[in-house]
């Protein structure tokens, strides 16, 4: 019973965090085909900036979370303007720029904070008990924040003017230009939201697990798995693939110890990709 409750909470938290990071990645990827390999590093830096606000400046956790999100989101606008926009459509140079950014961010964090693992203090103390099973409030809050942000992001993409403009750009960028959509502003906005979501996930995961300068690499690969399996242009597809991957990552370690569970997960992903290369919900693109 204990194990089942732990697995289920793990599943919900991992899924929501994966989906948050992958959604942020997908915003830029769907619109401008930018394969932002620095997204994992941005997620990692989000966690460390949150830690700095709480530990060094002594801010309240929630204010720190908000400020971190705003800072990283602003950094996203900067990134979009100076390092992504000049190379849109040039896959090789985008990859090089993103690797350079990721290296700079990881090295900077490594110098400032050291390679030892740190952790954010929990956002909420206490444990929720009901009968035989118990869940810490921390986990419930992490999941609640993640789920709320997801709902907000999906509402934004589907129901607001800007979100619909994003979808228009993702479908046909030239058509979007002809309709008078300000593609530059919308892509800056996409980068703003994408990096902000990554920062929130970084702070929440920093409190739930631990922080390390290289924790972003793994998250980046999870985000890539989610986005590619969902297919280009699909937001709701990311929800489904996120839940599937979260379930695999939460349940398999219980059954298979060590790295074997990760190998099985990745094996399943490769097989799924071979079955449907263009993704299960989106459409195929040529790059």
């Amino acid at each position, binding site marked *: 019973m204990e194990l089942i409750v732990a697995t289920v909470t793990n599943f919900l938290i991992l899924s929501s965090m994966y989906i948050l990071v992958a959604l942020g990645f997908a915003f830029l990827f769907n619109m401008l085909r930018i*394969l932002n*390999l620095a997204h994992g590093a941005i997620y990692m830096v989000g966690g460390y900036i949150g830690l700095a606000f709480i530990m060094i400046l002594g801010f309240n956790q929630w204010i720190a979370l908000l400020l971190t999100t705003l800072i990283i989101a602003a950094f996203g606008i900067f990134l979009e303007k100076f390092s992504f926009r000049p*190379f849109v459509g*040039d*896959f*090789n*140079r985008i*990859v*090089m*720029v993103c*690797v*350079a*950014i990721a*290296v*700079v961010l*990881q*090295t900077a964090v*490594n*110098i400032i904070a050291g390679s030892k693992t740190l952790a954010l203090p929990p956002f909420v103390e206490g444990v929720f008990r009901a009968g035989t099973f118990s869940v810490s409030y921390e986990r419930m809050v992490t999941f609640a924040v993640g789920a709320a942000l997801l709902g907000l992001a999906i509402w934004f993409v589907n129901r607001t003017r800007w979100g619909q403009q994003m979808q228009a750009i993702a479908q046909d960028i030239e058509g979007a230009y002809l309709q008078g959509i300000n593609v530059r502003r919308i892509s800056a906005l996409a980068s703003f939201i994408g990096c902000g979501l990554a920062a929130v996930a970084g702070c929440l995961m920093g409190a739930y697990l631990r922080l390390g300068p290289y924790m972003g*690499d793994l998250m980046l*690969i999870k985000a*890539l*798995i989610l986005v*590619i399996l969902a297919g280009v242009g699909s937001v709701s597809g990311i929800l489904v693939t996120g839940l599937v991957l979260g379930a695999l990552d939460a349940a398999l370690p219980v059954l298979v110890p*060590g*790295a*074997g569970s*990760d*190998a099985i997960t*990745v*094996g399943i*992903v*490769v097989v799924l*990709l*071979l079955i449907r*290369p*263009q993704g299960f919900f989106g459409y*195929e*693109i*040529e*790059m």
Partner: protein
Amino acid sequence: MDMSDKQLSDMTPSKTATVQEKWIKLAITAGVVVLIALLPLLLTSPYMLHIFILTFIYTIAAVSLRTILTSGQFPLGHGAFMGIGAYSSAMIAKWLGWSPWLTIPVAALVTMGIGMLIGYPFARLRTLYYAMGSLFFGMGIIYIFYAGGSLTGGYSGLTGIPPLLPIGTSKVPYYYLFLGLALVSLLALYRFEFSRIGINLKAIAQSHLVASSVGINEGWYRILAVGVGCFFVGLAGAGYAHYTTVLSGNNFSFMATLWLVMYVLIGGKDSFAGPIIGTFILVLIPEFFRDLKIYTPFISAAILLIVVFIMPQGLVSLPKLVRSWFTEHRKGRRITHAS
């Protein structure tokens, strides 16, 4: 894909000029090889020799990655294939007691076999989807190394691999050994690229539809390119295993693959010399700043950013770029004189 009219007009200058250019290129190559071969006479520090040996190994890996790139695929799992070569050679030598001289070619063949087996289902993935598929496959390989228990050493890595030369040998024999291995591999890959098969691969990269319409079997050639690339990366990995005698899955992770890709892209993926120049620049220049210790990754990042913003075609385009700056300058002056 990249062959615009401009490039085609570049390719048809007068015949004497091309012959002359060919001899100049050959002379430069021979000069560089002789210089590198004489280097151990000047460099006595074992550490610098060690760095050069690693550079030779990574040069083979980077050039073999470019071989797959010429077929229009973008492999992001090449580091993991280096790992397959390294681990298979190390495991055969350690657990079966074979001589490293025998296990290295066997490991290269094993890597080639696995690469071609995987290349068969992967041949239906193109561009981005191939890149992602190979990335995930590479991750799976690394996890298998981690999960292998005592057979692969698990997370702590495989130690006690039999060295290629008797223990206590200085770095100089290793230097010439790996220089020779690199030269032979590069020559083979050069011959491969400009053979009929290599030209077919370039045709597939430009347009797979046109290529298949003139009777090129696209899937088979893609598998062949992956096989050849994997053979040489397996060779490099196996050499690496018996040179360092210690292996860890981390050496072949996604970041390692990305650095291999960086070596190719920074040098210029359209030229055979590109990955060689890129590897030497990205491995050796940060070594000159070794005193900065933890700050050295910044140097690599700076090189990447300089190349991205100034040299879109990679470092090999630098002479052409400089020449065009000068000629444009002169032209501008002539125009002002005329007016």
